[in-house]
């Protein structure tokens, strides 16, 4: 494929990732409205079911080889990378270059003000009840979606599995997997903790992908 065609495809893909911030800001307010009535736990349930039902509405995928899957992943052809630009550092380590929620958050902070505290409160709830790996409500949607999407992907007949290693929010807040999990996740991802810190400097999410 010529470089020009590849570049055109990349531009089209980038424009597909961009949404209108009004919709994202409206969605944040909708979630805050739910939290006013149902609290952090109710909001958490909503976020989880929102992300799960989104993944379930997307088509299932099958790949003959791991390389085929990796190619689809980085080209944005897989459902798991439909909303973000992903690169693979190693065959088992995926990196999201920019959080897909950044634009909405930036518009929110620009137009409305400080991001409502409920978005971090719900993350604390999620971290204590589920897995300690999210920074705010957006991470709950993102990571739940990714896990639910992975369940719909088969590679050489085995379901894909993924786990978040670390996330960095736009304001620099970091959430890295707990110390007891980190060595295992890094080993699966085939990166060192130094690699991880280097990746986190200019990327949004680091996650491991594998099959059993």
């Amino acid at each position, binding site marked *: 494929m010529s470089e020009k065609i590849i570049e055109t495809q990349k531009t089209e893909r980038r424009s597909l990732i961009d*949404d209108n911030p009004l919709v994202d800001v409206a969605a944040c307010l909708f979630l805050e409205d739910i939290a006013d009535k149902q609290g952090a736990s109710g909001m958490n349930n909503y976020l989880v079911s929102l992300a799960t039902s989104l993944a379930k509405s997307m088509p299932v995928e099958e790949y003959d080889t791991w390389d085929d899957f990796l190619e689809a992943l980085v080209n944005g052809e897989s459902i798991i990378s439909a909303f973000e630009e992903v690169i693979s550092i190693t065959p088992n380590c995926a990196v999201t270059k920019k959080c897909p929620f950044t634009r909405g958050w930036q518009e929110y902070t620009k*137009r409305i003000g400080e991001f409502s505290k409920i978005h971090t409160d719900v993350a604390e709830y999620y971290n204590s009840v589920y897995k300690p790996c999210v920074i705010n409500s957006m991470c709950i949607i993102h990571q739940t*979606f990714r896990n639910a999407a992975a369940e719909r992907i088969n590679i050489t007949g085995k379901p894909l599995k993924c786990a978040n290693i670390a996330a960095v929010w736009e304001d620099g807040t970091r959430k890295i997997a707990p110390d007891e999990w980190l060595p295992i996740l890094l080993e699966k991802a085939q990166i060192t903790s130094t690699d991880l810190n280097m990746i986190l400097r200019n990327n949004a999410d680091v996650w491991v992908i594998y099959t059993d």
Partner: protein
Amino acid sequence: MLDVALVSLIQDMSEKAGVEGTIQYWARVGESLAKRMGKEAYMGWPSFNVALREGRTAFSIEGAVTALTDLAITDVDGDVVGYIYALETCVFNPTTVRIRYSVGELPRADRAVADEYNNSVRDTAVCNFCVIHQRFREEVSKNIAIADQQLDCLQLAARGFAGETKITEDALRKIGINPEYVRSLLRNYACVYAILMKGARLKGEEEE
């Protein structure tokens, strides 16, 4: 991503709370978004139009808006009391494309919510999302003052993703604009609305 997730929720919400429930929810979201953006004040229409062009007003969150300054709205005394504004791309357009390439098709509830809104509230919606941003604009107008006078917003016309249009002839009659002219604007714009001084004595209203 949040937008696509939100759309996948519409079907679920409409099944549980009915399409009327979804309309109420969306209207509340539009209202609360506008309220939280705060108040604005401008010396006159030129400063407001410049702020709009530079993306500084609350209206700008929707995307590029053009002030059609050749289409001034005048009152019975011939004074300018407002202008017509046009949104270049529907806020929902990118979401529709993203749904097409990620999920497949829009949920049935999208059409059902728009139809119910057209039947029970006002015949101006081309998709479910019109409920949020039309309400948003009405509320934003209340928060903006030009020369110390509060504003009002009238929805005039909208073009949906598949080309379907809604033209509000009553509102156009009020401000004395030919519907065919607005129809031609829809070739280049997705949504057309008027922003005018609240309580202005319009020619069309006087004739009624």
